């Protein structure tokens, strides 16, 4: 019922866009050539970490600037929680990361499955194959945010390793922190570390990625922890990000996951422009503003959108 209604709205919007050029319906700050989105509505969701909220706010702001009616549902939870919501149409659009999304979708059917793709293009292709019919991904950005293992200064001073192989050699003396999912994930998780690096950690402490892990590292309650590569805390606290010499950390390019119905040409064009304007360095800087300077994601996003010509 809701779906038919949404489909009808989408069709009407397309029809209106197609034959409504002479009607003056464009939003006042219509700067890009993406076209008018009034009449289209989307719900943008995000995962429960700052960068995801940032990206969601950026998508939302860019679409809104073109006249779309946008609702943001931030901080829904982990992928296990929010993915069903986009599958069923409760949400329409999410910022995603190529490898994480691909792994997750593959495992829905086969818990042991792993992606075959080895680079971003292959990842996108594989995604298009395995995503349900009602969902699609759009052009990925060059911005990437990979998982990374970082260690505090005491641990590096004591053991002196710089990459994951080095870490694995002394793993039985290391207490590792990571999200609860890490305990069961492969390749980037405890089972993966065991399989690819032969590592068995002394202890695993389940903590959320972000400040909880940072706090624990600073208190030396854990030696090393799972953070994200664009996290400002790494440089702020003098943590050492370990090199992934065995390449167990796959590419994680940022890209929009969107319901097929909502991916109208206008929406797609706007989101493609956003993806093109984002890069890893820029994303790290945005993260810094939220995490280190404590600004709200919506503010930082709004500023970025203005600086990059998406809004006035």
């Amino acid at each position, binding site marked *: 019922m809701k779906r038919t209604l949404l489909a009808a709205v989408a069709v009407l919007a397309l029809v209106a866009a197609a034959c409504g050029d002479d009607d003056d319906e464009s939003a006042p700050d219509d700067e890009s050539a993406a076209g008018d989105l009034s009449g289209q509505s989307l719900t943008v969701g995000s995962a429960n970490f700052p960068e995801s909220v940032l990206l969601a706010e950026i998508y939302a702001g860019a679409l809104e600037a073109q006249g779309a009616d946008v609702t943001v549902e931030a901080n829904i939870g982990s992928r*296990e929680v929010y993915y069903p919501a986009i599958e069923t149409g409760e949400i329409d659009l999410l910022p995603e990361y190529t490898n994480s999304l691909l792994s997750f979708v593959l495992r829905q059917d086969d818990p042991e499955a792993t992606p075959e793709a080895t680079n971003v293009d292959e990842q996108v292709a594989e995604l298009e194959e395995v995503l349900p019919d009602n969902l699609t991904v759009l052009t990925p950005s060059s911005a990437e945010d990979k998982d990374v293992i970082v260690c505090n200064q005491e641990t590096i001073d004591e053991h002196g390793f710089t990459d994951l192989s080095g870490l694995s050699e002394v793993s039985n003396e290391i207490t590792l922190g990571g999200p609860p999912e890490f305990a069961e994930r492969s390749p980037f998780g405890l089972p993966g570390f065991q399989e690819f690096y032969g590592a068995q950690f002394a202890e695993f402490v*389940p*903590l959320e990625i972000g400040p909880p892990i940072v706090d*624990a590292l600073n208190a030396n309650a854990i030696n090393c922890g799972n953070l994200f590569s664009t996290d400002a805390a790494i440089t702020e606290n003098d943590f050492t990000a370990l090199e992934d010499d065995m390449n167990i950390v796959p590419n994680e390019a940022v890209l929009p996951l969107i319901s097929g119905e909502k991916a109208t040409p206008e929406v797609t064009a706007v989101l493609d422009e956003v993806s093109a304007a984002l890069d890893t360095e820029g994303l790290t800087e945005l993260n810094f503003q939220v995490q280190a300077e404590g600004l709200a994601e919506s503010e930082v996003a709004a500023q970025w959108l203005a600086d990059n010509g998406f809004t006035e």
Partner: protein
Amino acid sequence: MDALSGTIEWLTTADNWWGPAGIVQRIWEHLQYSLLAVGLAVLIALPAGLVIGHTGRAEPGAFALSGAARAVPTLGLLVLLGRWYPVQAWPVVIVLAVLAIPPILANTTAGIGGVDPAVRDAAQGMGMTPLQVLTRVEVPLAAPLILAGIRSALLQVIATATIAAFAGLGGLGRFIIDGFAVSDDARVYGGSIVVAVLALLGEGLFALAQRSVRPAGLRRRRPPLLPVAVPIPPTAGGIST
């Protein structure tokens, strides 16, 4: 229902019970947090309740304090302490103790304070010192209510000790949090069932203890213990006061 069969399977798989992350280990951790917390709360609230109930001073204050302590959001306090002292057990114990103090303090105060003044007079008339009045008369009479308070505290603490998992610690909350993180519903439900059973076992043991300490003279069908105008201290479960 899929979740039901998955849960039963999880509960009946021997591997899940043993080992460093098994159910037995988690039960043990869970009990440690719970018993330490309730123990700490008893250490604080029981003497306080005895004194306040006996002397009658600051009685409204005791109830007000209980109310205020009940208002502290347990999870919020844990998150706060966890920021300053990450991955340590004692913040959990303290936070759970704060949760446990109100029922114990309120019930002890009301129990001692609610003893019929006539009985107290009679005891004093017999020549008992205040301390003897307290220990020989008031405590035995108030014992069921006091125990009911500790019982209520234990129930709440066992059910809430799952929050230790948020601080990266152990306990049965691990199954709930971890299971939730990887969408393993069987684990979430299984862990919850174990917590519920544990809490109910505690309840059962206490019910027996309460029955056995009721003074012989009061073992008939009891009239209401307190005048209606006094807030009835909350106790959970089958009542045997």
